[in-house]
């Protein structure tokens, strides 16, 4: 277990560096894929609710603390929730309909981005429709593409 935790910490650090390194180059209209969310979803699916939410909290808080966050605690909040929700799908990949499975994962991402942008942009008083079209759905699609790419490449390990 200790080895596994160290491995996750290593992957998280690498992804954090990658996000800082190539994130700005991949940003389109302030939308950028969230690799660490993908990791939290993966940990949740693989290890369950407790481990998923703990990983989400630690990764989110790290992002808040070293990611120059102007809104401390927000990433920790949404990542914890995503890790917890992803934990419901532990060992479910081959048990439930594959489309329902991926739809649920995307739904978790949708909830994640919806809460993130709703809290962060609350001071602007943007309408839900605008928030969804301008920020939530594009972020979901952009991160979703990378989620499925990674899922495709590492499908054996995930199983």
């Amino acid at each position, binding site marked *: 277990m200790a080895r596994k935790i160290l491995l996750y910490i290593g992957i998280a650090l690498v992804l954090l560096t990658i996000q800082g390194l190539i994130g700005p180059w991949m940003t389109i209209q302030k939308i950028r894929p969230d690799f660490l969310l993908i990791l939290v979803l993966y940990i949740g699916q693989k290890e369950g609710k407790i481990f998923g939410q703990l990983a989400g909290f630690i990764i989110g808080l790290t992002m808040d603390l070293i990611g*120059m966050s102007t809104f401390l605690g927000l990433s920790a909040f949404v990542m914890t929730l995503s890790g917890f929700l992803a934990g419901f799908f532990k060992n479910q990949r081959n048990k439930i309909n594959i489309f329902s499975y991926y739809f649920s994962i995307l739904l978790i991402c949708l909830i994640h981005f919806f809460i993130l942008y709703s809290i962060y942009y609350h001071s602007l008083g943007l309408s839900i429709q605008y928030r969804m079209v301008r920020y939530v759905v594009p972020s979901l699609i952009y991160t979703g593409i990378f989620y499925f790419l990674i899922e495709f490449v590492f499908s054996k390990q995930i199983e």
Partner: protein
Amino acid sequence: MFTRIYNFILDYIEYILLVVLLGIASFFILSNENPDVRSLQAEISSVIRFIHYPAKWLNTLSGLVDENIQLTQENIQLKLLNVNFKETFLENRRLNKMLGFMDSVSIEIIPVKVLNKGVTPIYNSLLLDGGQNIGILPYCAVITNQGVIGKTISVGPKTTVVHLLNDVNFRMGIRLQNSRHSGILEPMTDRAGLIKEIPKTTPVSVGEEVITSGYSDIFPKGFPVGKVVEIQEIKNSIYKNAVIKFNVNINTVEEVFVIKK
């Protein structure tokens, strides 16, 4: 009784943990203005700032050739400008003396390099490669030679987090230089902001300079912020809005100055 509680905790451990973790995260969200929490952020940023070095190195390499050409051109232009500025400065001092003005404000600035520009998708902030070690304090104005870009929010031993002008939660007191109307600047996009509720009777023109009002303790009076690029007339209202384009393109900033309090 205790066994029952113990069993209850065991049965619902996942949900109890979720409530605890979300509670801690909410505490951080609600303590955003708390100096102790900000100081914790700065301390941690300082300890693991090495994470930002690969990005800094890559950016330095890719921009080095272009930067060199640009700097050479700027250097020639600045040399020519410098001559004019010296003349203007001397003339200004003479005139000020004649009018009996005294230098009311003397500011000290600290030059700092930008370490990184954020690893999270939405926050608009900068991490500076210097903190308490070079005398930076929280809530100081951060400027470039073109104008204001933000304020320091958390200062660690070796790094500083800057809240940028174009962040959705940033507000700043400004003044329109010609019409002398003062207001609050709200960011709209990466390079533009909005001044709301300007009385329709106030003569505002496109191209008018926008400067800091000096009403806050953070930003000294008279620093350039941007220029008016559009005036939005509002129907059935006694007010109008002005769209401002920031002087500084924050995406290209590599060195900044922190104004010492």
